[in-house]
């Protein structure tokens, strides 16, 4: 009887079986998200107002500033990879991956903290924007939306720690770009470029709750 049930059940699932393309690997999905999120944010930001003149020179001559921006981007990309991995059954995040994320986060904090020292580029009002923090929230929201679209195809399990990453990685991309586009004053950067990312963190948690299985 149980065997008949089993056969009927399997038959039920296999009738009308059609082609079902496998999802992309988590690393590809993360890379795709990062490329699109950074590209769209960058182009949108540039079209609203051009980037700060001389930002490339600042990056080239101040390695700690370069470290801050590079580690922010790497943190976002690697965070996306960790989240995509966590939403794929059977693809576990290794301890090294989780540790790597912490290292990148620490590098970013160290890089930004160095902007308050004399190693940082000289403060400048060039490239000042009227509503830079609004822009960070809007672009970050778009990045988050795209991330949710990509990740909802996977198998998302709710976790507070990973939920915090959603908003953080989405907000960090426009925030880091804003460091290149808006005026360079460390206190302003903390208040109007990086703090708005915290607004996206609860939104990210909410998004995770919505897409969880």
């Amino acid at each position: 009887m149980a065997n008949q049930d089993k056969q009927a059940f399997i038959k039920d699932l296999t009738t009308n079986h059609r082609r079902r393309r496998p999802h992309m690997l988590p690393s590809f999905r993360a890379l795709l998200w990062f490329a699109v999120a950074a590209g769209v944010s960058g182009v949108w930001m540039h079209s609203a107002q051009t980037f700060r003149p001389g930002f490339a020179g600042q990056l080239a001559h101040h390695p700690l500033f370069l470290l801050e921006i590079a580690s922010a981007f790497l943190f976002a990309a690697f965070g996306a990879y960790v989240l995509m991995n966590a939403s794929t059954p059977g693809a576990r995040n290794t301890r090294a991956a989780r540790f790597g994320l912490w290292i990148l986060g620490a590098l970013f904090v160290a890089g930004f903290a160095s902007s308050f020292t004399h190693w940082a580029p000289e403060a400048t009002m060039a490239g000042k924007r009227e509503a830079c923090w609004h822009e960070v929230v809007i672009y970050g929201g778009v990045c988050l939306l795209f991330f949710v679209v990509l990740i909802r195809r996977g198998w998302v399990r709710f976790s507070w720690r990973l939920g915090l990453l959603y908003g953080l990685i989405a907000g960090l991309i426009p925030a880091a770009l804003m460091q290149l586009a808006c005026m360079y004053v460390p206190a302003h950067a903390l208040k109007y470029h990086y703090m708005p990312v915290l607004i996206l963190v609860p939104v990210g948690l909410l998004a995770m709750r919505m897409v969880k299985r």
Partner: protein
Amino acid sequence: MKTLWGRMFIQPSFPVCNMIPVCYCSGFVLKRAVRYRTGMIKFMGTAETLDFETMGTLAAKAQQGDGDAYESLLNGLYPYVEMVLRIRIGFSPELDDLTQICVLAMHRSLPSYHPSRSLKPWVQAIIRYKLADYFRAQARRKEFTQTDEVIELAHHHASADEEDDVADRLNFEALLKQLPAEWATAVQLTKLDGMSCEEAAKKEGVSSGALRKRISRAYKRLAVLVEKELES
């Protein structure tokens, strides 16, 4: 005893193993251990013959739309899932339901398997997720059984007349009418008409998960309603 344990592991088909809990073991821990080992013995036969490489190839073919490969894949995975679950939850009456839930989840998440990866961690992860859901649901259900115990206690203490009185007061149909129509139908089909969750879900045109959710919510509301009725 020690030799017997050894024999149980060496000979998977050792017939006495099912009698061990009754004959030798007393106490919860020992029973659990024996249940685990007897499960392991039956499981070993399936696990050893289940070739995950071949299964992975079948899964890749199934993703391309090969129905026969898909049927072979599910036929291969079904007993494996059943055995893994038997080890974890024992010979529970919910074993069949849970096995089907796991296989259904695999069916739905087939695109999340990538052919370049091994199938085994994918299968095991899905079983783990569904088991976690099951244990979570079980913990939630404990609240309802507590409510049931209150009612049973009320019956126990009441005299025959009072029992009729309680039964009269707990008019189940009237209580059902107080629930949203979808929830009431779900309870009606599964608990009163005796349908399985899958059958009821099919009849209602929803997924079995959605139907279970409805039943669970209906129970919660019913528990509150019953308490209110008994108080008034």
